[in-house]
């Protein structure tokens, strides 16, 4: 394919949609790729095909996506759904698979808006059938109108856990208990940050209503729980935890576990973007300037994938990236860019007031004791936490070395589910911070691709011939 786009936007969530729309509105040739079949990302999943009931259940935070989608349609940006990006190069080449064919396209600018994921935290039984993310349950409601119809326990920490709990309570789901690992009392750090949050009384009121609704429902709700376990042999049958020394146990067919949201940063690591460490929320994110530009001049990061700040912030960051790309391409002059950016930056600041407080309240705390030797850490390859510790005992100090010795991170998910915990556990064993033990190297493919599809793909002429199998031999 010899066509060159002005921009390729990877990800069709709020950041991707708003970036694409703004770019197209400026008259640029833009294509938006997403592996899902419909735009919306996770938060606005299935928004264009959503039922009235789903929109009523989810409220304004979901229906905002309708206007966003409408704007996108009007803008003329191209949407390429069902397109799974599996490689990307800083000079603008993007490789993706759609309808069982792999293609190569090229753009002058790339906006990466691939979003976030639920933080994967291994605890005993977390890989039993019936254990899902709280966000996962939310996805099923939006995707297919599904509601849990069995005994449910919810566990973990984070605003999304409580949001989903409220939603399920409203729908009449039989929630047996909410077991929060969030500490019982606010830390000093969180208390200091409440002042900034006070600038958003509306947000705080919303939060307090949420907590109040949960209380009114009578669902047992604990904080500061420890030793969370999902029990069962072939599927989850019950959930156990400790409230201090008091043992809690609830029979359940479903455990919705959620430990916060972290960037899905695989694609940034594949590219080789410089990363920074968010110590409070314990995740890596790409280093960017205020427009979202990474260390690669023509690659921008927007949305939760660049740092978890929520759906509105994602929208704003998508806009800002688009404005700067427009400016860089010479479509709009600097003063126009700055004029249009100002109200967006103001909205961003307004939106961000409660964030430091929320991040502090739900800051995860991990130590050696958080992880049992017998717990599976690598679900794909069936590797136990004890296997990791054994390798560390034999001198392994870095997560890539751990990966090659134990196979942890070598499976289909490419370390998405075990990478964060590998760093936490290695750091805890070595008395180092998780950002001091390396980051798993990511190479293509970002998603599995059939070998036949790779073999058949058309590439721009590169002159690379087949390998000389005898190059090393018989000299």
């Amino acid at each position: 394919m010899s066509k060159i786009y002005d921009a390729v936007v990877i990800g069709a969530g709020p950041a991707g949609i708003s970036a694409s729309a703004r770019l197209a509105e400026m008259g640029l040739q833009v294509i938006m790729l997403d592996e899902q079949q419909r735009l919306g990302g996770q938060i606005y999943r299935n928004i264009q095909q959503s039922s009235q009931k789903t929109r009523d259940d989810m409220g304004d935070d979901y229906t905002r996506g309708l206007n966003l989608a409408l704007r996108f349609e009007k803008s003329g940006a191209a949407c390429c759904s069902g397109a799974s990006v599996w490689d990307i190069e800083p000079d603008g080449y993007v490789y993706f698979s759609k309808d069982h064919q792999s293609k190569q396209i090229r753009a002058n600018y790339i906006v990466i808006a691939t979003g976030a994921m639920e933080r994967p935290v291994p605890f005993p039984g977390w890989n039993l059938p019936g254990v899902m993310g709280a966000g996962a349950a939310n996805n099923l409601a939006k995707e297919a109108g599904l509601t849990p119809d069995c005994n449910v326990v919810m566990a973990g920490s984070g605003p999304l856990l409580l949001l989903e709990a409220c939603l399920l309570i409203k729908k009449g789901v039989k929630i047996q208990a909410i077991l929060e690992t969030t500490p019982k009392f606010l830390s000093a750090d969180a208390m200091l940050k409440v002042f900034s949050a006070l600038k958003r009384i509306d947000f705080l009121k919303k939060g307090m209503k949420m907590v109040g609704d949960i209380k009114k429902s009578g669902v047992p709700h604990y904080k500061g729980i420890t030793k969370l376990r999902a029990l069962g042999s072939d599927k989850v049958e019950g959930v156990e935890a400790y409230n201090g020394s008091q043992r809690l146990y609830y029979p359940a067919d479903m455990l919705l576990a959620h430990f916060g949201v972290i960037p899905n940063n695989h694609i940034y690591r594949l590219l080789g973007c410089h990363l920074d460490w968010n110590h409070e929320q314990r995740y890596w994110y790409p280093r960017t300037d205020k427009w979202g530009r990474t260390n690669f001049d023509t690659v921008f990061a927007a949305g939760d994938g660049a740092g978890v700040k929520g759906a509105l912030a994602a929208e704003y960051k998508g806009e800002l990236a688009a404005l700067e790309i427009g400016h860089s391409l010479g479509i709009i002059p600097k003063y126009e860019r700055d004029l249009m950016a100002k109200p967006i930056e103001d909205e961003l600041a307004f939106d961000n007031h409660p964030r430091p407080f929320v991040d502090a309240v739900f800051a995860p705390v991990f130590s050696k004791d958080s992880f049992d030797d017998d717990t599976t850490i690598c679900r794909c390859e069936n590797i136990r936490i004890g296997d990791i510790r054994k390798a560390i005992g034999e001198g392994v100090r870095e997560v890539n070395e751990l990966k090659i010795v134990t196979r942890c991170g070598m499976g289909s998910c490419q370390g998405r589910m075990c990478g964060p915990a590998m760093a936490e556990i290695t750091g805890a064993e070595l008395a180092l911070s998780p950002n001091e033990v390396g980051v798993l190297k990511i190479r293509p493919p970002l998603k599995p691709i059939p070998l036949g599809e790779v073999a058949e793909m058309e590439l721009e002429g590169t002159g690379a011939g087949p390998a000389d199998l005898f190059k090393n031999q018989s000299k």
Partner: protein
Amino acid sequence: MVEYCRASLLFSTDYIGFQLSSADVIVIGGGITGAAVGLGLLEEGAEKVFIFDEQLPSQRLSRGNFGLTWFMCKGGNNPNYAKWCRMATQAWPDFAASLEAETGYDIELEWTGGAIHAFGEEQFQNYADSIEVVRKSCAEADLDYPVRMLNRQEFADLIPDIEIGGDVSGAMYTADQGHVNPLLLLAALRSAFQKKGGTYHSTLSVSNVTPNNDGSITLQTSRGSFTCSKLVIAAGHGSSKLIAPLGEKLHIYPQRGQLMVSERYRRVLKVPVLCTRQTPDGTFLIGLSTEDTALNSQVTVEAMKNQASNAVRLFPLLKNINWVRSWGAIRVMTPDGAPIYSRLKEFENITVLALHSAVSLAPLHVKAIAPWILGKSEAPQISHFSNYRFNV
């Protein structure tokens, strides 16, 4: 009394410090070669051996090793290298067994031979001709060369559980070699080394090598200074910068190798083919590229496409099997492809090792290179692998 106690405490701390930072032999480089040599040194009676390893992912060359324990195709026009490779291959089964017995690591050695497939008649004939070249070389070293060409039917019969592609004309084949898991080999060597009393220092970098007048060597590192009586440098691409200040140039150059790994599939291929083998856990490894690049271990889509294309042409089954990850590493290549085992002319207690195919040659690094380093014995081939052979 207090002064006396304080003085003896100081003395014992210094003494302990000295004990912790001095060794008989230090090996710089904890990859497969460094770990094998370290193990061999202990087995040969060296008392205190340290291995220094940076654990830098970009320099972990075993990440790009295909895992073949082969002699086939090695040593054409180089009888010493042909002999060396053959000796290594023959030593593999016992080597694997003893390593597994010592450490409990199953390094997945399968002694199932090896093949190189041919497409079309011309390639078939080229391979047949090349067999004779290597056979001649082996004859000069008093070696046989049990390699032959299989026609298409014979090749298909050799691997009955997987279909071969339409234009596969046959394969070069020998039964006397195998394949192994390079990553587990590294883990097992490191484990055996430590079990035998070796000290493994990880995430430690050496910045300076200083030979002293009394024959000892001092190393400046990121964790303080160390001394040793003998030094082995097996640091891959990091070796050059360590010996340059000593006036030595290491004749190596980087050659990138990329390989692809598939998802698991039920076991249908037990004989490793040069560019496609299936591991005991069911994943297919597909290689293999030989690119003259600088120290850039990025993978390229062109290479992936070529490798996938070749693999699917060989085994049509692979068409619908997913590629799930790639590995790449920069081989340490020498001008003639044979290893460098070299004592520095000016500093005979410093030895440098530089080579590709560290997996194939691992048994000899334990059994032959280690005793040579200690001055206990010298296999006749070793003198042909000096770094100085390139100074013409």
